C-alpha cells in the first residue's frame, strides 16, 4: 500500500534534489491528469449522482451535486406530509416550522409541536431543511412498469450477435487483404476505408429500402446485419495481421493446414489483441446505437434499451429521473466489457515465437 502511495506521489523534483521540490513537469502532469480526470469522469459521476434525485430536486436551481430532499413531517388534518423549514423569526431567533400552504410570497406555517397556531412567514425568511436521500425508486420503478428486462434482452442479443458477426466477417476480410496477393488488393482496401467517410445519415434512406425489401423491418436482424461490416474493423485488423510473419503461414501450409485452418487456428488466435479492441468498439457502438434501431423497430416488444428509454421523453413531459437512472443501468455492461477486455489490448503475442 505504501509502495502504491509512493508510486502515485512520485515526483521528478523530489528525486533530483532529494527534497520536496516541484519540477515544472510535475505541476504540468498533475494539472493535466487531474484536469483529464475531471473532464472524463465528472459527467459520469454527475449522471450517477443525479440519477438518485427526485424530480423536484432535478428541477432545482442552482443544481446540487448530491441528491437532497426536503424533510417532511405529517401534520394532523393534512393527508400529505408537509415540508419542514428553518425560519428566521422577527425577533432574530430561528424556529423549525411546517408549511401548511403558501399564498404569494407569504407562507402559512405551524410549529409541529403546536399545530393550532398559524404563523405567517415571508418566504425570504425561511430555508428548507434538507437531508441526503437516494431515490432508489428511480431504479426500481422502471423495472416494474417499464419492460426493462425485455429491452435489456433485445439489446444484449443485438450487441452480442452483431459483435460476433463483426469479428468473424471483418477478420476474414482483413486476412484476405493482408495475407493474400491478388490484383486490385489495394483498390479494395481503399474502397473499404473510403466508406468511413460516408455517415449513416447519407445512406439511411437507401439502407432503409434495402432492409425493407429484404423483409427485415421490425426484426432484430434488421438492426444487426447492416452494421456488421465496419471499415474501421477491417482496417484495424488488417494492420495488425500485417505484423504476423508470413513464415508462420508458410509453416502452416507445410504442415498440411487448409486455408481455413490457417485462418482459424493461426491467424485468428494471434490477432487476439486486435480482436479485443474491435470487440470493445463493436460492443460500445451496438449498445449505444439509437437512430438505426429507432428506424427499423416499430413494435415495442423489439425495442432495444436505447430506443426503449425514449418513451420517457414525451412531447410535453420528460421524466428525467427515470432517464438518468436507466442511462446509468445501460452504461454498466459497457464498462464491464471494457474492464474485462482491456488487458488483452496491450498484449502482443504475435512476435514472441520468432527469433
Amino acid at each position, binding site marked *: 500500500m505504501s509502495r502504491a502511495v509512493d508510486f502515485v506521489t512520485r515526483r521528478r523534483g523530489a528525486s533530483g534534489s532529494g527534497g520536496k521540490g516541484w519540477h515544472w513537469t510535475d505541476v504540468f502532469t498533475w494539472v493535466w491528469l487531474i484536469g483529464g480526470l475531471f473532464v472524463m469522469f465528472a459527467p459520469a459521476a454527475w449522471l450517477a449522482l443525479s440519477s438518485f434525485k427526485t424530480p423536484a430536486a432535478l428541477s432545482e436551481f442552482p443544481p446540487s451535486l448530491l441528491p437532497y430532499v426536503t424533510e417532511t413531517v405529517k401534520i394532523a388534518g393534512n393527508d400529505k406530509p408537509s415540508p419542514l423549514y428553518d425560519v428566521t423569526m422577527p425577533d432574530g431567533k430561528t424556529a423549525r416550522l411546517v408549511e401548511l400552504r403558501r399564498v404569494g410570497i407569504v407562507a402559512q406555517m405551524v410549529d409541529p409541536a403546536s399545530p393550532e397556531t398559524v404563523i405567517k412567514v415571508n418566504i425570504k425568511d425561511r430555508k428548507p431543511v434538507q437531508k441526503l436521500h437516494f431515490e432508489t425508486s428511480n431504479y426500481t420503478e422502471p423495472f416494474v412498469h417499464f419492460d426493462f428486462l425485455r429491452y435489456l434482452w433485445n439489446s444484449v442479443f443485438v450487441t452480442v450477435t452483431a459483435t460476433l458477426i463483426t469479428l468473424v466477417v471483418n477478420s476474414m476480410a482483413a486476412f484476405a487483404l493482408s495475407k493474400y496477393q491478388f490484383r486490385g488488393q489495394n483498390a479494395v482496401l481503399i474502397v473499404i476505408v473510403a466508406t468511413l467517410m460516408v455517415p449513416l445519415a447519407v445512406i439511411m434512406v437507401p439502407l432503409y429500402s434495402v432492409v425493407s425489401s429484404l423483409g427485415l423491418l421490425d426484426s432484430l436482424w434488421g438492426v444487426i446485419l447492416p452494421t456488421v461490416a465496419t471499415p474501421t474493423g477491417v482496417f484495424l485488423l488488417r494492420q495488425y495481421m500485417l505484423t504476423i*510473419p508470413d*513464415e*508462420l503461414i*508458410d*509453416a*502452416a*501450409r*507445410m*504442415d*498440411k*493446414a*487448409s486455408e481455413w*485452418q490457417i485462418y482459424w*487456428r*493461426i491467424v485468428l*488466435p*494471434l490477432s*487476439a489483441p486486435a480482436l479485443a479492441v474491435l470487440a470493445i468498439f463493436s460492443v460500445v457502438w451496438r449498445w449505444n446505437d439509437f437512430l438505426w434501431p429507432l428506424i427499423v423497430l416499430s413494435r415495442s416488444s423489439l425495442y432495444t434499451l436505447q430506443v426503449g428509454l425514449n418513451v420517457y421523453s414525451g412531447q410535453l413531459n420528460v421524466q428525467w429521473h427515470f432517464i438518468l437512472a436507466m442511462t446509468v443501468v445501460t452504461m454498466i455492461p459497457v464498462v464491464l466489457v471494457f474492464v474485462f477486455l482491456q488487458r488483452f489490448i496491450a498484449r502482443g*503475442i*504475435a*512476435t*514472441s*515465437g*520468432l*527469433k
Partner: protein
Amino acid sequence: MGRITLEKVTKSFGAIDVLHGIDLDIGEGEFVVFVGPSGCGKSTLLRQIAGLDRPSNGEIRIDGTLVNDVPASDRGLAMVFQSYALYPHMSVRQNLAFGLENARMPKAEIDARIAEAARMLEIGDYLERRPGQLSGGQRQRVAIGRAIVRNPTAFLLDEPLSNLDAELRISMRAELAALHGRLKTTMIYVTHDQIEAMTLADRIVVLRKGRVEQVGSPLELYNRPANRFVAGFIGAPSMNFLSGRIEGVSEAGTLLRLFDGEVVTVPRRAEAAHAGEDVSVGLRPQHMRVAQAGENGVPVTIDMVEALGSETVVHSHAPTGELVLAVLQGQHNLSRGHNLKLSFHPDDLHLFDKNDRRVAGT
C-alpha cells in the same frame, strides 16, 4: 524415397528474373547445401521445391512425379524456417502435433511420434511450454522436431542456424550432421555460410545471381573451383588473386609470369591457353609460406599482422597494390611495414581466364 529433380527451373517476379534455368538432380538420402551470397536466389529456389512458390517455367519432380501443380501440403516435404516460425500461441507439443492433426492421424500415433522426436532431440522437458519461453537453441530443436514428426520424404532447411550465437551454431551443426546420419533422409540446406556448407554437405550447390556456378563435393569445390567466384567464395579466408600472364605451354607444364616478372612453371598443361594470355592467379592464404633466402616468391609489404598463436594471419600488399593475405603456420616475428617474400608451391596455383573461368587443363 526422396529424389528431387529440377529441370530448367526459372522464376521471375514481374520483370525481375531471380532464377535462370536451374538444373539439379538430388539423390535419395543426400545432404545438399545451397550456398551463395544473399540475393543469389537460394531461398527462392528452396521455396519452389517446397511448393510455397510456383516456378515460372521448368519442372520439379519428386521421386519422378511432376509436382509443379501439387500444393506444398501434399508434397510430403518438411521445412525448417530461418525464424523457426513456431506457432507462438501453441505449446511445443501442440506445435509438433499441428501438422499431424491436419493429416488426420490417430491420437496414439501422434503421441508416439512426438515422444520419439522429443527423445531424439532432447526436448521432452519442455513439451508443455510456449515457444516464447524457450531459448534460441531450444526453439531450433523444436523447429527441427516439427519437421521430423512429419516423417517427410525430404527436409528443407532455410538458414536454420543463422539466428543462433556462434558457439551454439557449431554444436547444432554437429547435431544436424548426426541427425542426417541417423535419419538418412534427403536434406536440402540453404546457407550463406560456406563453413556450414563445407562441414555438412555431401554436395554443395554454389549459386550466384540465380545461376548454378558449380555443383560438387566440398573438397572438389575447394580443390578445383570451376571459376573465380567459387574460388573466392569457398574457403576462408578467401583466395588471393594476382595478375599474371601465360608465357608458354610445354610438355613440362604451363609457364606463367607473375606481375613482378617472376616465372613459375605450373606442372599442369593449360590446353586451351595461349602464350601471351592474361590470367588471374588464385592462391589460397593457407598455401603461402615465408620464402627461404634465395627462394622465389611474391614480394609484399606487411599492412597488419594477426597473431592467433597456432597461426599468423598476415595482411599485406604486393608492389602492384594487389592485396595478399597469408595464413602462416606457427608464430612469426613480423610487424607492420616489413618487406617479405611469400612463396608457394606451383601445384597450389589456380588459373582463371579473363572470363573468370578456370583455365582448362590446370
